[in-house]
């Protein structure tokens, strides 16, 4: 077996552990971003102007500053300043979560604005409160519409998570670099890392596509595009 293959075989379990670490971060960040993003979108679409102002500011900041800068700012700056001793995993999950929340909020906001206002009116006309109408009528629909864009966001955040290696988080990239610096087998190792990212992306996108199909509202045209 050529040395390049031996390195990959030997280090594969070690790299796969990194894949689990990466997947863990991304799942946490995406779910955190989902929760926060929905709240932000609701606030921006239905809230009074001071709320809208603050939330829009949030969107501008988190979309306007590179993730790497945010990571340093939070990990070395804010968390330390506040005396919070977060692990690398938690820190990265928080920063990626806050970032993706901004992008997800925009996805949800767009979906909300595309929903015919009449349905909200109809809900109100039946005596539903605004909160009930948002929970029972708006969210179930906009979350469905948002799945393709959300899937896109997943694939972006997955790859952004590689930045976590700069604060020493033991994810795919950090582990690959560690092995490469010892064995000098850069080419095969980074190809392997690339393949692992590719597979993680593929799995996530496939699962979300399945979900999209499963929750599709009957009667709406199934354009059947296979992603």
């Amino acid at each position: 077996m050529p040395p390049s293959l031996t390195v990959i075989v030997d280090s594969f379990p070690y790299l796969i552990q990194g894949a689990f670490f990466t997947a863990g971060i991304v799942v946490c960040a995406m779910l955190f971003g989902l929760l926060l993003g929905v709240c932000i979108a609701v606030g921006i679409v239905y809230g009074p102007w001071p709320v809208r102002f603050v939330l829009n500011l949030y969107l501008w900041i988190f979309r306007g500053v590179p993730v790497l800068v945010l990571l340093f700012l939070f990990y070395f700056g804010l968390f330390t300043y506040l005396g919070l001793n977060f692990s690398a995993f938690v820190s990265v999950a928080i920063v990626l979560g806050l970032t993706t929340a901004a992008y997800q909020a925009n996805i949800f906001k767009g979906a909300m604005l595309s929903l015919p206002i009449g349905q909200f009116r109809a809900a109100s006309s039946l005596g539903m409160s605004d909160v009930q109408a948002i929970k029972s009528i708006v969210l179930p629909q906009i979350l469905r519409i948002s799945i393709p864009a959300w899937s896109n966001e997943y694939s972006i955040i997955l790859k952004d998570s590689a930045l976590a290696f700069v604060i020493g988080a033991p994810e795919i990239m950090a582990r690959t670099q560690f092995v490469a610096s010892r064995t000098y087998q850069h080419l095969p190792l980074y190809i392997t890392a690339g393949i692992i990212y590719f597979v993680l992306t593929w799995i996530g996108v496939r699962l979300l596509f399945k979900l999209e199909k499963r929750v599709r509202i009957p009667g709406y045209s199934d354009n059947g595009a296979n992603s």
Partner: protein
Amino acid sequence: MTEAKFILEVDTLNKSYGDNTILKGVSLTLEEGEIKVLIGPSGGGKSTLLQCINCLVAPDSGTISMHGKEINLKNKKDLYQLRQRVGMIFQEFNLFDHLTALDNVTIALRKVRRMDKGAANKRAMFELEQVGLGDKIELYPAQLSGGQKQRVAIARALAMDPEVLLLDEPTSALDPELVGEVISVIKALAAKGMTMIMATHQISLIAGLARNVLFMENGIIQEQGSPKELLGAGKKTRTQGFCDRLSDLDGEGS
């Protein structure tokens, strides 16, 4: 007070969008079992008036009373209460796209009335059967025709036991061959004594059902009276002129 006499009183409603005044001091009263029909040119403020009556659009000023009791429009609880008592049918149906016909009807029963699922389903089944859709309950809005959608919307409103029903051009968005099925549902409601205010251009509904016709233009009720008074032979009212033009447009003479 006028307690028993009027179910609904609307007094001097005003509504503007910016410089554009839509409603100019509109007042009306509604007795139990009465059917008022609202007609007039497009843009005259009919939809705005109907939406102001249950505060889907907040009026700038004016009062709304039910059974002689003024509703505090600033209080959300009172508002939600008012809307439960005043049902609304929209021109474009506004069904909840993600719910089956059955759940379109049950959702408010469950969320607003806090009925359990079994009771809500039973009530919804009853209402859907009343509008002739007992066999369509599992279908989603996208799987229904326009006429069926509007009938689901009517069942949905009726399930809340409204005291008054507001209908905003309930047949205007329908293909001509589907108008009949919705009209017969509305006529059946009228026969049962439902109190209604309906904006419509459907001559058969105006002449056949209305106790009172309100002709609305430029945000003002310009004329009102019984169909006979406004539309009787030889009357030279503006309402008459308007209806003549409608009949001309209908062409084939419906």
